[in-house]
């Protein structure tokens, strides 16, 4: 089952204490931690702190991480941060931890596990609103069920999560294609998608968080991709994808991404190799250099083939809060 691989996915981290906070001699060696992809950096602090507590200067902790100087947004799942920031995957991933000097002008505050849990539940509510049209399913969960669900995510306990997830009563995410494919295993439809008289799924909104990193020049290798200095270089789109129904055609991952990034829609003639209609400008006059291009799409660390049916991607690769996180590297269109 794909979800098992998603939950078992992990990033080896090598965490260095920021040199300004090293109050011991010799300085402590870096901490080696295996971070779950679907987890969050603040949840690893209890594993990391023992390595450094004897080296810290006196005072209260306000913990944050950076990658090559870029403060890391703690509410983004660790796997997504890695896929987005490391064009060429770095193993182990070298991060720096700080216990002082929280950059509160850039990062929203984090009070440890509580903040991460709040963020998780909020995202779950938002996903519920998108899928079901309301947050009632999450609001109606008992406090202890919510706690247990969160704990299962924190501990990477897929068995408990699987046992609890029917209690969330999240609607199914399907389109025509996947419905036909799963005809052999009837499932109870739990609202969310509208069904018309003929039993065809009418509309479906899918929770997606798209992280777009753009480069201005084309590149041969991923290691040639320039480093990121600020988060202003990333466009973050927290916007649902709408399944668009086209007769006989499957809604692919490419279709989904292009619906969010219309400026990267591939030219139709280029795509199908057909003549296309009469154009005032010959399509071949617009060279590859000037066109914007989707260079790389990563989900759960996998470089995705864009022709995969989007419903499969969603149902198999989403995070526990029912959001699909997509990291995209694009080459900007030249104007």
């Amino acid at each position: 089952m794909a979800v098992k691989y998603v939950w078992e996915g992990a990033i080896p981290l090598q965490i260095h204490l920021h040199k300004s906070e090293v109050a011991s001699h010799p300085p402590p060696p870096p901490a080696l931690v295996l971070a779950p992809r679907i987890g969050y950096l603040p949840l690893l602090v209890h594993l990391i702190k023992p390595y450094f507590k004897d080296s810290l200067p006196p005072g209260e902790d306000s913990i944050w991480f950076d990658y090559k100087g870029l403060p890391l947004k703690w509410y983004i799942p660790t796997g997504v941060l890695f896929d987005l920031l490391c064009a060429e995957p770095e193993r182990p991933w070298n991060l720096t931890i700080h216990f002082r000097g929280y950059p509160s002008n850039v990062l929203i505050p984090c009070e440890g596990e509580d903040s991460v849990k709040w963020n998780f539940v909020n995202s779950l509510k938002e996903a519920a609103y998108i899928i079901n049209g309301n947050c009632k399913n999450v609001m109606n969960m008992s406090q202890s069920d919510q706690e247990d669900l969160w704990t299962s995510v924190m501990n990477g306990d897929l068995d408990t999560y699987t046992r609890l997830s029917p209690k969330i009563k999240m609607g199914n995410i399907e389109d025509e294609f996947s419905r036909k494919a799963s005809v052999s295993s009837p499932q109870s439809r739990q609202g969310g998608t509208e069904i018309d008289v003929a039993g065809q799924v009418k509309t479906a909104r899918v929770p997606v968080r798209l992280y777009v990193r753009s480069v201005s020049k084309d590149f041969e290798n991923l290691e040639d991709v320039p480093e990121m200095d600020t988060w202003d270089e990333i466009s973050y789109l927290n916007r649902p994808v709408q399944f668009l129904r086209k007769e006989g055609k499957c809604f692919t991952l490419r279709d989904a991404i292009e619906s969010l990034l219309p400026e990267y829609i591939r030219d139709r003639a280029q795509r199908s190799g057909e003549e296309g209609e009469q154009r005032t400008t010959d399509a071949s006059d617009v060279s590859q250099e000037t066109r914007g291009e989707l260079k790389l799409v990563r989900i759960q660390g996998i470089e995705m083939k864009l022709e995969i049916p989007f419903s499969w991607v969603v149902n198999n690769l989403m995070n526990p809060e029912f959001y699909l996180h997509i990291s995209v590297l694009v080459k900007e269109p030249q104007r």
Partner: protein
Amino acid sequence: MDSAGEKKEGYLSLEKIIILSSLEGSAEEESLDVTADWSEKEESIDHTVLVQNVEDEAHYYDYHIVYSASYMVPMLYFRGYSSDGKPLSLDVIKRDLPSSSVSLLLESKWTFITQEEHPYLNRPWFKLHPCGTEEWIKLLSESSSSDGCQMPVELYLVSWFSVVGQVVGLKIPREMLI
């Protein structure tokens, strides 16, 4: 729309609202009536606001209205800062609000403030949670529209803002209330 005819994403912005608070005793705020140009712009609208001449600490506020694609409602983001640009904490901001707003915040289950990242600006801002928006918009529009279809955007925004604005101490000038 830009030259290519593409729709561009933007947000409504109302910036540099000044609220004066006296340094001694309880903070007395001046709720300022502001006329806003409700056209979609990407740059901020600079409004010079007439303020009283008081030699007190001035607090500046910026308000942005951003559309939430998930909840399909507008959301109010705001932040406060002092004249040296230093951000104000939520406690300080609450002291600038009229007392009616504070009780609205505390009592209503539909309005609460969280600190989140601005969707476009990559900085922490305060946000008024959108959770109950649809419900109280329905309550507001129940008496007006008879056929139950979508009300015009301007009316929606004014209705929405008449509630949301109260929470953060902004008033709509009478001219806007049709």
